[in-house]
């Protein structure tokens, strides 16, 4: 979906780079192998201050469950803490930046989950922008950017697909 503003009222926030890269898979990267401890810490944080479910942190117990071992919760992010930091896409820049179109927010997402992530898994991601629209909102002239991201494990099995909305204003 692409909606252009009226030329005599608002300058577009759509960049030539966005137009050139629309539909093109990019930002491919591979995360380090998932560690049991990564999953444990993740669950402690997201369940805080309650104790997370046992099958996320007790390997012996997890063997007795339907999963047959520890699995990560579906929202687990194995890409946290990269050594190299790629440039942040414009649609994800800080909300504190000055100037119209330089402030960004996460508008939302829909994740569909495939096989679960397990300790030792190596996850690879790729993303692409699929479209955008612009309209007046309470934030001012606002650009909504739509994209999708795909995660696969070392066996090329789909772990997750995400359809996301980025907001710039």
């Amino acid at each position, binding site marked *: 979906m692409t909606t252009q503003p009226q030329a005599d009222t608002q300058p577009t926030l759509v960049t030539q780079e966005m137009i050139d890269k629309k539909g093109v898979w990019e930002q491919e990267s591979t995360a380090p192998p998932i560690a049991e401890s990564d999953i444990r810490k993740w669950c402690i944080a997201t369940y805080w201050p309650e104790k997370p479910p046992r099958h996320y942190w007790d390997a012996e117990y997890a063997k007795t469950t339907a999963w047959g071992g520890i699995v990560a919760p*579906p929202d687990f992010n194995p890409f946290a803490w990269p050594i190299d930091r790629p440039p942040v896409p414009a649609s994800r820049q800080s909300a504190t930046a000055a100037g119209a179109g330089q402030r960004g927010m996460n508008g939302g997402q829909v994740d569909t989950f495939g096989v679960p992530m397990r300790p030792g898994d190596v996850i690879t991601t790729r993303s692409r922008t699929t479209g955008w629209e612009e309209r007046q909102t309470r934030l001012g002239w606002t650009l909504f950017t739509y994209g999708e991201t795909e995660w696969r494990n070392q066996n090329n099995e789909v772990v997750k697909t995400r359809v996301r909305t980025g907001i710039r204003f």
Partner: protein
Amino acid sequence: MANVYFEDINVGDSIPAWSRKTDFMSWNRYAAVNDEFVYIHMDDEAGRAALNEQGAFGMGNLRYAYLVNSLHDWIGEGARIHEVGCQFRAINQKNDVLTVTGKVTDKKVENGENRVYLDMNVVNQKGEATCPGTAIVVLPSKK
């Protein structure tokens, strides 16, 4: 072991409420695991610069985690979350008490799976809906 079975679910059923008080203790822990050190979540001045008068505010991704956790705790470790989606409509302010709500909107067998569809939200202590969304879970059968 699953906590609920497909046959026991009816359209209109609500999932158990799942609540957390959120402040820097929860936000900083989430920042630490998700590597999400962004000034708007750490510093009141940065939050106000981002047009939130009350200062720093919580991460959308943490509210998303709360949606996932509430579903997991409802269905149990023997069932599966197939899909979760949400929009971040309102800000998570410091000291908010957030409660995840969910209501069953449909149930059907698709692709050989017993799927249950839900409308989801994260509601603050004022009753404001901050994070409307949907979810699909796959439940075991008693048969």
